[in-house]
């Protein structure tokens, strides 16, 4: 009780350094928020523009959403994007889970750092370099096999999605109590059963986070997709890029806003799923 008695007069206690108390903090913070969200807000607002312009407000309407919905090409590229993102994130998450298990459930050995580098290569090599490399490499395979399907895009997306799936899974594994697996083994669980019944359920939030991240990263990739895609294999982002080069209508805003809603939806679902697991 004694601690709550404050001496009269100004509080003389020394406060730790706090960036919040620096002059101009509020101003800088507001500028940052505006810079981050004003463009997005503008984009969303003008997706409801009744006029043809993305700069002059002509009243509220759903017309651009209807236009986008009726646009067969938009539908086609959206489906393609979702197919690639689903396949790539699923494969990448599976591989990343194995990689994470392989790099954490082991004694440190020489070359473990090299393994990290290899797994996280897409984070370090400039995307344009990967894109060119893949273009040349896949071109050779195309000539050799004659296959020109979606497989190339899925393979390329899988490759750059792996580190994004890997990092949250590994973080989760590292924070996991190893005694739990020891306890499972002590209670007659074979290594496989211990993995199925103990490790995997506890790892699940990390796997889910990795998969979501991989999905979103794959969904909005432009550079590598642009290089690797064959004719008629536009994804939603590369299609939008192509459209923007010609004429800009609020239809693009409408598609982008729908895209944004999908991302927010995914993150929200993930948030609630991971909270329920705790």
């Amino acid at each position: 009780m004694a601690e709550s008695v404050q001496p009269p007069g100004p509080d003389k206690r020394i406060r730790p350094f706090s960036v919040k108390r620096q002059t101009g903090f509020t101003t800088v913070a507001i500028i940052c928020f505006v810079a981050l969200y004003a463009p997005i807000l503008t984009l969303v607002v003008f997706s409801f523009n009744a006029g043809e312009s993305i700069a002059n407000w002509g009243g509220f309407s759903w017309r651009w959403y209807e236009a986008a919905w009726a646009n067969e090409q938009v539908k086609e590229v959206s489906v393609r994007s979702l197919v690639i993102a689903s396949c790539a994130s699923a494969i990448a998450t599976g591989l990343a889970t194995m990689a994470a298990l392989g790099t954490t459930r082991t004694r440190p050995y020489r070359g473990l750092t090299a393994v990290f580098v290899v797994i996280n290569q897409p984070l370090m090599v400039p995307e344009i370099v990967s894109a060119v490399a893949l273009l040349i490499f896949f071109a050779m395979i195309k000539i050799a096999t004659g296959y020109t399907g979606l497989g190339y895009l899925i393979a390329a997306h899988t490759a750059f999605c792996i580190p994004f799936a890997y990092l949250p899974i590994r973080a989760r594994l590292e924070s996991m109590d190893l005694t739990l697996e020891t306890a499972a083994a002590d209670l007659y669980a074979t290594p496989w059963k211990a993995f199925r019944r103990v490790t995997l359920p506890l790892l699940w939030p990390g796997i889910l986070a990795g998969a979501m991240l991989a999905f979103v990263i794959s969904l909005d990739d432009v550079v590598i997709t642009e290089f690797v895609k064959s004719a008629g294999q536009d994804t939603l982002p590369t299609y939008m890029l192509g459209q923007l080069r010609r004429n800009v209508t609020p239809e693009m805003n409408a598609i982008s806003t729908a895209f944004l809603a999908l991302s927010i939806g995914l993150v929200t679902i993930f948030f609630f799923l991971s909270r329920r697991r705790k």
Partner: protein
Amino acid sequence: MITISAAFAEPESIVSERKSAQPLAFRAFRDTLFGPSETETGGKRLAKAAVEARHVTKAFGDGPERVLALDNVSVEIRENEFFTLLGPSGCGKTTLLRLIAGFDHPTNGSILLNGEDISHLPPFKRPVNTVFQSYALFPHMSVADNIGFGLEMQGKPKAEVAKAVDDMLRLVRMEELKNRKTSQISGGQQQRVALARALAPHPKVLLLDEPLSALDLKLRKEMQIELKRLQNETGITFVFVTHDQEEALTMSDRIAVMSAGHILQVGSPREIYDRPSERFVANFIGDTNLMEVEVVSVSNGRARLRFASGAETEADMPEGMSEAKSVTVVVRPEHAQLAGTGDNGVLSGQLENVVYFGTDTHYHVRLDEGVLFTVRAQNVRGGAEERQPGARTDIVFSELAVQVLRD
């Protein structure tokens, strides 16, 4: 002086007899749980080894960083025994437990279970369960699922698992919390669940690694009693690890005192306390008075010893020490007394300090040869008059109080 001898070694047989004298109700309960235990059929206890470590060495790391966590350790743990590994932190207790459980494998030597070498078996093939210091309950399962996990992994039918889980919940008095998540119960309750989970598959041996160290004092005392009860009711061999000497003395049938990767002495609590074989054991368990004494003569394992004061006494000489010219002896503070008028003192000195503890009083006496000697006396109403610091005093103790250490 006679009072002291009464405190001495109760023969080993009486200690082991305790188990068969357990109330019938306990045995009946255990038998319904697990079926009658083999060792009791015929009404006679067989002192068979449940676990045996043979010349076990465990080294960690190599080169200059090599640590010998266990150095040629051999020990036999009997069936149905409450066996305690006692020693300071870092002496290798956990390592020995992990070798028995199969989480680690010995660098040298072998681990036997019921006479069978299990050194090569993985943990999930050993009929041995562990209660972990951190409990290690599965956080994504309910209390009941945790307890049933072992049986389920053994492939027992669902109904059997469910029945065993209920029995276990009853055994640890946790019926109401069956469907709780393990994160929604208190530390003491988690401890009980951990115990129930490890006992449910009815292991041959239960290993407990400092299971009580995370509990507060009151809960700790409760769980000590609870553990003894569980051991009685289940008839399972318990191997218990602690660094708390009092806990070891009150709970164990036998204790192994460990230090720096070695087992120094194995015996009943009484033997360990009254007949410590080494300086480390004497110092680690209870308060001690250590004295250097001269060996006058040795015959048939009995030695005539002379104190610095000139007084002589007889004591058992440890094996292989008949050549020693001088030895260290132990006298426990409560086995010595301040001499009354008319007693012939063994030692004499000056009273330096008197510390009153309520139940007893400690007298610190500076002996004439310069060593400090502590005498502990029970406080009784109308007892001897209080002694004042500075007074000269003699100290007396019986021959039985003198224990020669192996050095």
